[in-house]
């Protein structure tokens, strides 16, 4: 598995993603610069977390127009696996590769803590074999409140495109387990074809024993299996 991690000005989780794929999984991971036009033949593209362009205008709005995003869109259209984490999720919605938008957390606070996620819906490259699992993964965001109009939301729910929901440790989904006010308690969604996934929580921050939690590794291992090792 070859993994391209896109660095935008202000990305700060790109090295973490490269480390998980390269050091923990022992596969090939490399960074590509947002202003370039070459993804270098990846099996998987990750748009990492961070504060690209200082979150100016709207989170991800300026990065969505970066030169490399045309290549990411082509790759996604051909069925390529794309994962957007946190700011990467915001960039995917701003670029129109995923529906909806992420706006200011309902409580107005920047939230940085562990949450629990219930995996469900489509078997995407990042969630295949994980349906029904509850995973503990940290969030760190100010704008993770998922919004979409009622029709879009109904389509996402009906087609299994909601792949991650905030839940309690026992898997129960309710408002008390939702940190940011997201509609439908949504933490992650997939494109209709399932190959593009965006999630607010950070699996790369809990993917090795040194970090005290390895739940996040499950998403990377699913990708490894789905994409042929």
């Amino acid at each position: 598995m070859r993994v391209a991690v896109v660095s935008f000005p202000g990305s700060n989780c790109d090295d973490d993603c490269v480390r998980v794929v390269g050091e923990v999984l022992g596969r090939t991971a490399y960074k590509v610069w947002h202003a370039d036009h070459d993804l270098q033949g990846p099996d998987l593209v990750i748009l990492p977390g961070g504060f690209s362009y200082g979150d100016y205008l709207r989170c991800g709005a300026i990065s969505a127009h970066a030169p490399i995003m045309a290549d990411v869109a082509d790759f996604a259209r051909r069925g390529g696996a794309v994962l957007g984490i946190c700011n990467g999720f915001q960039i995917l919605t701003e670029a129109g590769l995923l529906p909806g938008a992420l706006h200011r957390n309902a409580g107005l606070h920047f939230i940085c803590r562990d949450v629990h996620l219930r995996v469900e819906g489509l078997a995407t490259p990042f969630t295949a074999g994980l349906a029904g699992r509850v995973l503990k993964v940290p969030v760190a965001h100010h704008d993770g409140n998922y919004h979409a109009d009622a029709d879009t939301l109904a389509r996402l729910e009906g087609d299994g495109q909601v792949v991650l929901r905030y839940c309690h440790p026992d898997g129960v989904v309710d408002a008390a387990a939702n940190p940011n006010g997201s509609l439908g308690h949504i933490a992650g969604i997939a494109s209709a074809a399932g190959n593009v996934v965006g999630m607010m929580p950070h699996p790369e921050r809990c993917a090795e024993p040194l970090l005290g939690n390895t739940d996040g590794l499950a998403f990377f291992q699913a990708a490894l299996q789905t994409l042929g090792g």
Partner: protein
Amino acid sequence: MKGKVTVRLKAGVLDVEGKAIEGALAKLGFNGVGAVRVGKVFEVELAETDPAAAKAALTAMAKGLLANPVMETFEVALEPG
């Protein structure tokens, strides 16, 4: 020529910043304040001198970058002078 693009949250979208400002106004003793909603104004200097073309350019900018159609609406105007 100077243009102005005003971007507002759509009516159905919860404005959490507006809510916080509402509360702050009440604490400051401003009574009788109803809902407060927060928008953005972009003042854009344009080399274009034709008003119709300038408005078309501002509309393209709003659609392409300044507003997110999922959550926001926009209006464009030209500043006098």
